[in-house]
């Protein structure tokens, strides 16, 4: 539309290259980061380390970030994902400790996470509070409740011996050599992709995120869909809570909040760098991979641990720069 000729538009070849870079930005960024660390440190490109990235860095963050993706898809955000992780973890560990069957305890954990989501849904869809403020309130309330339940924040340990087999399997087992948490994460990735791209719910959710007034003017009750999205966030985050507590056999109050910022980062990296600028599961997962590799790689280079967040920050700036070029290209 604009009549001005941008420098990018001026010549054909550089434009094509920039276009290719921008359209595949996430994959290229992954390859670049991967290559840099492979050269920078000998231990990065080993089977053991790559496994460790997937198990220690990737799995739980991927699940929480996918949960976040549903909140972002309806144009919101959920600052209380960590609260859902914690509540699920608390219910799960407490019931296992009380001698309940693992299956029942796991269901209760999922229910606890979904309840956090339902609480958000009431605040946002029922009362009409903005997602940012509503879930911020939930975050604070959730933190207090956990402190009250644990006498001021004492962890709930499971005894080292006598942990039910099913519980151990969830955290440390393997199916055909693949760690169970990774299998579960893969299942959630597939299911979330299908819901967001092929289910009617996903289509409406994305439309709400893109232009809510049009959804309303099309005769669709947006609030109901937003409510379901936030309950889904709690439910999916609860899965991460179950895996977390099964892996470390302990519930530590408010530990789930550690995922919050990375989950937001990964989701927006994936959204920003997708072709249509829409929240999408594949983008989120690539964003999580990117963050995981940077975290692991920086650690291996022997850099002070405290530099890790500088890496994450720079990564987000790089994404913003790429998306800026992307937008210039789109409007040219």
């Amino acid at each position, binding site marked *: *539309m604009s009549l001005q000729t941008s420098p990018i538009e001026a010549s054909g070849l550089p434009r094509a290259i920039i276009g290719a870079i921008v359209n595949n930005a996430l994959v290229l960024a992954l390859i670049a980061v991967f290559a840099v660390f492979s050269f920078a440190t000998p231990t990065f490109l080993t089977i053991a380390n790559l496994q460790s990235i997937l198990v220690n860095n990737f799995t739980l963050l991927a699940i929480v970030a996918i949960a976040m993706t549903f909140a972002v898809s309806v144009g919101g955000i959920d600052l209380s994902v960590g609260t859902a992780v914690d509540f699920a973890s608390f219910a799960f560990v407490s019931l296992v400790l009380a001698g309940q069957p693992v299956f029942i305890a796991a269901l209760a954990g999922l229910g606890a996470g979904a309840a956090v989501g339902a609480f958000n849904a009431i605040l946002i869809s029922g009362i009409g509070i903005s997602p940012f403020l509503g879930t911020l309130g939930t975050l604070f309330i959730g933190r207090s409740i956990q402190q009250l339940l644990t006498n001021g924040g004492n962890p709930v340990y499971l005894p080292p011996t006598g942990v039910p087999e099913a519980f151990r399997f969830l955290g440390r087992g393997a199916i055909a050599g693949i760690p169970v948490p990774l299998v579960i994460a893969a299942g959630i990735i597939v299911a979330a992709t*299908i819901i967001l791209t*092929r*289910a*009617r*719910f996903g*289509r*409406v959710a*994305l*439309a709400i995120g*893109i*232009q809510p*007034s*049009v*959804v*309303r*003017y*099309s*005769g*669709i*009750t947006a609030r109901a869909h937003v409510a379901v999205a936030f309950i889904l966030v709690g439910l999916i985050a609860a899965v991460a809570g179950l895996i977390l507590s099964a892996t470390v056999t302990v519930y530590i109050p408010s530990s789930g909040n550690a995922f919050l910022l990375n989950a937001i980062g990964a989701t927006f990296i994936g959204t920003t760098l997708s072709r*249509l*600028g*829409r929240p999408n599961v594949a983008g989120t997962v690539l964003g999580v991979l990117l963050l995981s590799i940077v975290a692991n790689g920086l650690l291996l280079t022997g850099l002070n641990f405290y530099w890790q967040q500088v890496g994450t920050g720079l990564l987000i700036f790089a994404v913003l720069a790429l998306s800026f070029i992307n937008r210039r290209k789109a409007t040219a």
Partner: protein
Amino acid sequence: MSAASPAADRSGDAIHLTRIVKRFDGAQALSGASLRVRRGTVHGLVGQNGAGKSTLIKLLAGLHQPDEGRIEIDGQAYDKLTPHRVEELGIHFIHQDRLLVPTFTVGEALFLGREPRIPGTPFLDRRLMQRRASEILDDYFGVRLPNSALISELSTAEKQIVQITRALLDQPKVLVFDEPTAALVRREADILFRLIRRLRDEGVTIIYISHYLNEIEELCDHVTVLRNGEDVATLALSETSAAAIARLMVARDIADMFPKRSVVLGKDILTLDRLSVRGKYQDVSLTLRRGEVLGLTGLLGSGAKELIRTLFGLETATSGQIAIDGRAVRSVNPAQAVDQHLALVPEDRRGNGVALDLSVTENITLSSLKRFTRLGFLYFGGERREADDLIRRLEVKTAGRDALVRTLSGGNQQKVAIAKWLSRHSEVYLLDEPTVGVDIGSKVEIYNLIGDLAARGAGIIVLSSDLPELIGITDRIIVLFRGHVVREFVPSETSPDEVLATSTGSSETLRHVG
């Protein structure tokens, strides 16, 4: 205090715009419009929607730059005006929706950006601010507004008073009023008119923009009529009348662009019985039949827009009945309205009609997704066929069904907005200004489409301020004025200026309506 002593010299022009041309994205908003306003007069500016009034005013305000033409202020030519420069030149704009931040206090709003300080200190001189504000408020309006009152607590009229006071604090040379009475009751309007006359007598030049031709007749010394981006006449009010102005506003040479077809009317599909929304419109009763295209028109504040919104469940009726196909319905939200086979094509197409960043297909099926869902999952094949089918039927010009609607022209976006309801199998279509911002070619296609819908037995209400359009495509026209149905026209027996005169409340017509 005298607000405008410097304007003692009444000869010469305060504003002189010559042959202004302005294009937006290829569409010509102004094609050589001129406006010459003599010092110390009240000058009316009228024209239908799209005639170029607001573009011309925005150019004068420095918000847009002209592509061609000359702007002279006080005999001095200016190449590049900025809003700041315009204010320095003593030109101020009064518009009901603009300028006032609701969370500011009256004092902050009045003195924003030019707060007087206690001499020699960085502190605001609150006493001086309060004194200067109350002087003007008391002298010109006879009201007292504490400087600490919040803007959001004020009535519309009081907000306007604050705006005018803000302008008067600067001792303006020119005051531009843009539809100032749209939200005022008659008594408040009278106060405003007295104020305008007094300011003129003190030497201030007034530009007065209004749809209400009776106000122009009552208030202005001269009037300039804009049509299709050009000035068609500048007249002295002593030598003309509201009816003559109305005639000038309406173009007559496009009658043959309306494909008129005769449809045999079917059963009643929509019946309104004494429908009212308190404060918006009262006791509207009408019947729409299958195959009928009903025109609806009225100015801002006439209640016509609110009537459409009520039917679609965006506003709640305070009394009265709506029946569809003889069954009483109560749409309290758009979802229920859509389930009753109602469809709204809203005026704000890019805000409410289409989702710009969804694809053509996603927009077309948004409202009818249930039909393309099996067990909660989308059936892409059916969705694509539906989109391709409607793209072909409505001749939507798009790079493909997967193109984002953002990439389509206004006319084609509008076709997508209508296609959404065809896909939903809607039966009562509420079209709110369906051809605003649409090029001539697409307009004719949309008129044809409306005819097709009627022929298939749909009932259609077209709300439009484009009167030749209404006369061209509808079976009858209902005019609302200040919340009431004042008259019904048969298109073949009326003219755009007669309809316009009725909807603007121009005195002679109202008299014979009684």
